[in-house]
């Protein structure tokens, strides 16, 4: 147990928080534990979770991406237009993934080739991608997304299981494997921990950082396509502020904003905690504006838990170093 806590402390605390959340909200209203409600929570977690998974890799490598919300809108409207035009859902998906990878790569190249600070570079593309979404649609939502597409990305393929959840799980597993069990993933952690040491160990830092932005934005593209399936329309105004929710999911799950530390499992749990809280506050009948306050508190408390865990686990020796 002790060992488990030392290696997976953040995931465990997120898990404990989720259990606590379930106990409390079920105590308030037993409907919280109903299968419908749980499905609701997980479905809501899908969008932020997919984006959060992508951004987790970026943050681990020492970057940040503020452009994911705008990229979500752009991807959604382009894919919506193709789906409306009758393109097969599989090709729609592939197109979306390619768009995501390309938008992410632009961010990555701005950071690596032009040496821009990630915050500024992605703030710039945040505005550009939003503008592209408006220009592409002339600010009119793309409506009439066909049923086949909507079923493909969000249909109930099994009782209580929608394909979007499958997409969420599969993407989470793939990124987890990439980060944990490939050279690229090992390099992501090393670059985020100490870029210079990584470079002097022969790591191609520029390549790693560019690719992690690209991979991260694929998560956003998947989120865009899932949301498109849920809503049935590609709206160029969608996704505003989503970047903060995605970063919050990662932060709650223990990803260090300083880089070098974080896990996909943590982010998935963070996303579930995040959406469970939203649903719970609605179930409990709390005024909708309190949700913002509660969400903020969760972010701050979970960050403080990390500070506490760091002090406890490393002790005064690490403090001095």
């Amino acid at each position: 147990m002790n060992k488990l806590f030392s290696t997976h402390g953040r995931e465990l605390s997120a898990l404990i928080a989720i259990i606590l959340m379930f106990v409390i909200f079920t105590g308030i209203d037993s409907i919280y534990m109903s299968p419908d409600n749980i499905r609701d929570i997980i479905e809501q977690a899908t969008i932020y979770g997919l984006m959060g998974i992508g951004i987790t890799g970026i943050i681990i490598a020492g970057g940040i991406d503020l452009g994911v919300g705008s990229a979500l809108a752009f991807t959604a409207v382009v894919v919506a237009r193709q789906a409306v035009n009758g393109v097969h859902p599989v090709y729609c998906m592939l197109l979306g993934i390619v768009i995501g990878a390309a938008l992410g790569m632009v961010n990555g190249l701005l950071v690596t080739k032009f040496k821009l600070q990630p915050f500024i570079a992605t703030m710039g593309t945040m505005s550009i991608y939003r503008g592209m979404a408006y220009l592409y649609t002339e600010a009119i939502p793309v409506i009439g997304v066909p049923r086949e597409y909507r079923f493909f990305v969000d249909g109930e393929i099994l009782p209580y299981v929608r394909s979007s959840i499958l997409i969420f799980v599969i993407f989470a597993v793939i990124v987890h494997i990439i980060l944990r069990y490939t050279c690229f993933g090992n390099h992501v952690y090393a670059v985020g921990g100490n870029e210079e040491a990584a470079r002097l160990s022969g790591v191609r830092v520029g390549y790693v950082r560019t690719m992690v932005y690209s991979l991260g934005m694929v998560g956003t593209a998947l989120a865009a396509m899932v949301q498109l399936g849920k809503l049935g329309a590609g709206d160029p105004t969608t996704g505003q502020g989503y970047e903060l929710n995605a970063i919050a999911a990662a932060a709650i799950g223990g990803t260090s904003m300083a880089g070098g530390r974080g896990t996909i499992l943590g982010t998935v749990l963070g996303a579930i905690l995040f959406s469970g809280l939203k649903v719970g506050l609605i179930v409990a009948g709390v005024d909708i504006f309190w949700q913002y306050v509660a969400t903020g508190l969760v972010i701050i408390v979970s960050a403080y838990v990390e500070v506490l865990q760091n002090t406890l686990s490393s002790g005064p020796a690490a403090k001095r170093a």
Partner: protein
Amino acid sequence: MEQPMISFRGVSKSFPGQVALDAVSFEVEKGEIHALLGENGAGKSTLLNVFHGVFPPTSGEMFIEGVKTTFADTHEALMAGIVKVHQEINMVPEMTVWENLFLGLEKRRFGFINKRAMIEETRRHLSVLKCDFSPTARANTLSVGQKQMLQVAKALLINARIISFDEPTSSLSSKETETLFGIIRDLKAKGITIFYISHKLDEIFELCDRATVLRDGGYINTFAVADIDRQTLIKNMVGRDVAMFAARHRPSRADYSRPVLEIEGLASEAGDFSDVDFTLHHGEILGFFGLVGAGRTEVMRAIFGADRASRGTMRLKGRQIANRHPAHGVENGIALIPENRKEQGFAANLSNSDNIALASLRKFRKGPFVTSAGKRRNALIRGESVRLYPNDPAFHTRNLSGGNAQKVIVAKWLSTEADIMILDEPTKGIDVAAKAEIYSLMEDMVEEGKSIIMVSSEMPELIGMSDRIIVMREGRVVAEVGRGNCDEHTLLTYAVEG
């Protein structure tokens, strides 16, 4: 007799896995210039850090003018009139001279800062110190010497009783040094007590009244400078043990008929060095000596591929190579163990196992996947061969002592099976026992047929360990000294005069 200005009684300081100061006791008289001497790692900087409140001693007491004193932090020491002129000068580069001078001590009038009064006072202090830069100049436009003067001005501003200088002349020109000495003598004349750290013995004899020698964290002796000669001082500083450790215990493996790395006409893009020629042989330990700024580190970085070379050729076992990225260096079987471990050697977020595997990850792949078990096994084996303690793959490298962190970095490069190991200041800041282990590891490496380049500023270890020593000065190779006919005096002469 008058109360001593400072009196240390049994001051000790330990860090994890290292005793940096061991029950040091001595006294400093009021108004004297007191030198603190010792080799790298002898404990001089640790003693000063304790004295200035950077960290508390593990045990022992400190008296200032007979009053028992402890400082919670550097600010408290500052307020008590105890100022340190830093080795690395810390000021806010974007702020002006007067803003830096009054930082934390701002003069106010009606709640607002009184800019005019502060500029005026800055001007006065600067003229006392015979400085010719403007109070309104930005700090980042000043030379190192000028920045130092600004720190001295700060000491005057707060009416310092004691000022410490930590290697103040290391980046000063000889003219600036002379000016600084003049100032220090003026300070002494004002009754201010001076602590002076330098490894340049000439300066000690020119400037100081008494000198205290530390060695391996312990107090050795305090001498009146007038009554002592250079040889005695050196003998006290060096001590037999280090010289004994830094020696080859096994026969040389150098095979001069087998050149491994041939460098010809190498020049850097940034202009740090040019026309560098040398050859490294199979099984050889090749030392590189030079003063700070001689370009040794830069040459090594260019060979490895960390920096670009603009001219010159490199041949590896007869084959011409060009390393334009560290990845090329790694592929060509070259390892660079950098001087700054924490900044360049390992990632603080990674465990030993991940740090050791970092440069050779591909070896632990099964299909496309890197296996944790493979990395773990590798870490155990490499950790064992470098005598890492604790040899725990899951342990975070950042929590290791300096010597063990260095062993992790060596293990990382053993894991790549590099043939050429470049060690830049390999024993900097690690304790004597760990030094001895690093020396022994170097002998292991040449026994396995590797070749080593050792860049070091510590002459005893260079002389003790190297088969040959190359001396650099101002970006050029100025001498090559064979084993047997080299001593500290020879090396230093080449390094200083070419």
